[in-house]
């Protein structure tokens, strides 16, 4: 078991205090006790700089973008497009117009399911997803497959919560039009071998969508290195604001796909007879964009870059391993998901206790965890459990907080048995 004092030098401790002071909410008291926020996979907290830039935006240059000749509109447009290039750089996309702003991962995936589906999927075709997908990477494909007479195939997992890659290869036949998998499981914490999945799919000319909602804040992603065709993620899970997400798509696919929503921004010309569509990225950005949120997201990326993804990953790995060791000391505790490669979520159950009961008693100790199926019901069915307790970490969490979690779970078990 890792020991607090062994692994964290004094300098590192100072770092953490500095980091925590960047996130105002971490100073909040809940029921009179300091908040222990371990629900980061649901949504992360926001640094001051993100809040500041959004406030400034509204106070200094709020305006509609792209269509305005006046000063505020120019300033807002510039900030908006600088943000796009910032996202482009963060994922190393080849072109800035391959970055489409959406309202979140869910919308990004729905966009692809709808537009890619209309263009490329016919009756008899199939789509591959995995057994550990979030509902947002299941239901859009179900809706699309149902509409187009296609079928959904599922990569199975082992008891540790790892994809069975051999079975995946078996599924890759000529009916498959797209593979959609998550990079990191929000429930199990499993990090999937997405590079390998992409290479294998590409060997058969099948494009791949990666759901990076739980990866983008933990792992450096280079879309050109991965050669991924579509990447989806949410701002609110990477220290950015709500109501913004990204769809990265390779230019060649995005150009071939029909538009998703119709409206302002996405058209070149409109007449009642015939409308023609705008170039990328605007073709997929109908309506007044989420300018404030996009600008906020850009500053969140700045914050991540300044902190360093390497540092973030290292800290989070320390926390996870420290937490796993701590939790394992609890009798009858069962980890759900024990993949070799893992990121910031840990799911567990204790004896016969119901996760909802454990979550509620943790809450009363100011420890925020999530309980339930975490929008991965099929995964719960596979493990034959009603749900789990999930603690999910960010680099601003501390070993002290992990200790509180372990103590809190012990108290819950005592009360409940």
């Amino acid at each position: 078991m890792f020991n607090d004092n062994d692994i964290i030098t004094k300098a590192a401790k100072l770092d953490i205090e500095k980091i925590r002071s960047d996130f105002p909410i971490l100073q909040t008291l809940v029921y009179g006790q300091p908040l222990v926020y371990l629900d980061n996979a649901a949504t992360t907290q926001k640094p001051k700089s993100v809040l500041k830039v959004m406030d400034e935006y509204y106070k200094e240059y709020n305006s509609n973008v792209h269509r305005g000749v006046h000063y505020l509109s120019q300033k807002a447009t510039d900030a908006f497009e600088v943000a796009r290039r910032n996202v482009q750089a963060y994922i190393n996309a080849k072109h800035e117009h391959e970055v489409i702003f959406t309202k979140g991962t869910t919308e990004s995936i729905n966009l692809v399911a709808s537009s890619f589906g209309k263009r490329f999927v016919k009756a008899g075709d199939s789509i591959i997803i995995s057994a550990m997908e979030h509902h947002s990477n299941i239901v859009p494909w179900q809706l699309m497959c149902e509409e187009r007479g296609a079928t959904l195939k599922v990569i199975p997992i082992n008891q540790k919560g790892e994809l069975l890659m051999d079975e995946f290869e078996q599924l890759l036949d000529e009916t498959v039009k797209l593979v959609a998998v998550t990079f990191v499981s929000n429930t199990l914490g499993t990090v999937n071998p997405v590079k390998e999945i992409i290479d294998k799919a590409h060997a058969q000319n099948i494009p791949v969508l990666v759901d990076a909602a739980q990866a983008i804040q933990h792992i450096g992603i280079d879309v050109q290195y991965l050669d991924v065709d579509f990447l989806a993620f949410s701002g609110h899970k990477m220290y950015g604001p709500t109501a913004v997400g990204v769809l990265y798509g390779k230019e060649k696919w995005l150009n071939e796909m029909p538009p998703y929503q119709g409206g302002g921004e996405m058209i070149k010309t409109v007449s009642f007879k015939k409308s023609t569509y705008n170039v990328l990225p605007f073709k997929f950005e109908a309506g007044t964009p989420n300018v404030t949120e996009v600008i906020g997201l850009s500053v969140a990326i700045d914050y991540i870059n300044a902190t360093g993804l390497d540092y973030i990953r290292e800290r989070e790995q320390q926390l996870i391993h420290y937490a796993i060791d701590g939790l394992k000391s609890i009798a009858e505790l069962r980890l759900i998901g024990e993949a070799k490669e893992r990121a910031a979520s840990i799911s567990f159950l204790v004896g016969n206790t119901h996760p909802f009961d454990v979550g509620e008693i943790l809450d009363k100790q100011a420890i925020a965890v999530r309980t339930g199926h975490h929008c991965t019901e099929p995964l719960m069915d596979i493990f034959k459990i009603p749900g789990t307790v999930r603690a999910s970490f960010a680099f601003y969490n501390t070993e002290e907080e992990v200790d509180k979690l372990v103590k809190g779970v012990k108290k819950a078990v005592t009360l409940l048995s």
Partner: protein
Amino acid sequence: MTINEKQDQIIEDFELFNDWMEKYEYIIQLGKDLPLINAQYKTDDNLIKGCQSRVWLHADYQDGKLFFTADSDALITKGLVSMVVQVLSGHTPKEIADADIYFVDAIGLRSHLSSTRSNGLLSMLKQMKIYAIAYLAKALQ
């Protein structure tokens, strides 16, 4: 006792507890007591699926009054369910239909009732009222 008298009684009882731990211990104890429902009624028909826990509810009508039995897979929910059943059972459909259940909030367990998102307990209360209204409607015919 009226429904509100019963609720006030529970609230008063809870004021005796010194901290949340004692409250929960009490509720959990209620939950651990014998199943509140006859096994034959623990069917899918009687199941109320909340967002986190499941609740089974059965209603009997006798001498103008409704009697409830229930169960849940989560202990705290079960304890609460047992209190709600105690509060509403043995009253007329009209009393139940008109009842305002405020004790859960008052004893500091609002996570079980807040938000419009139905969870087990909220759905159960709704279901109890639906039973009551159904009997009311029948009575009017």
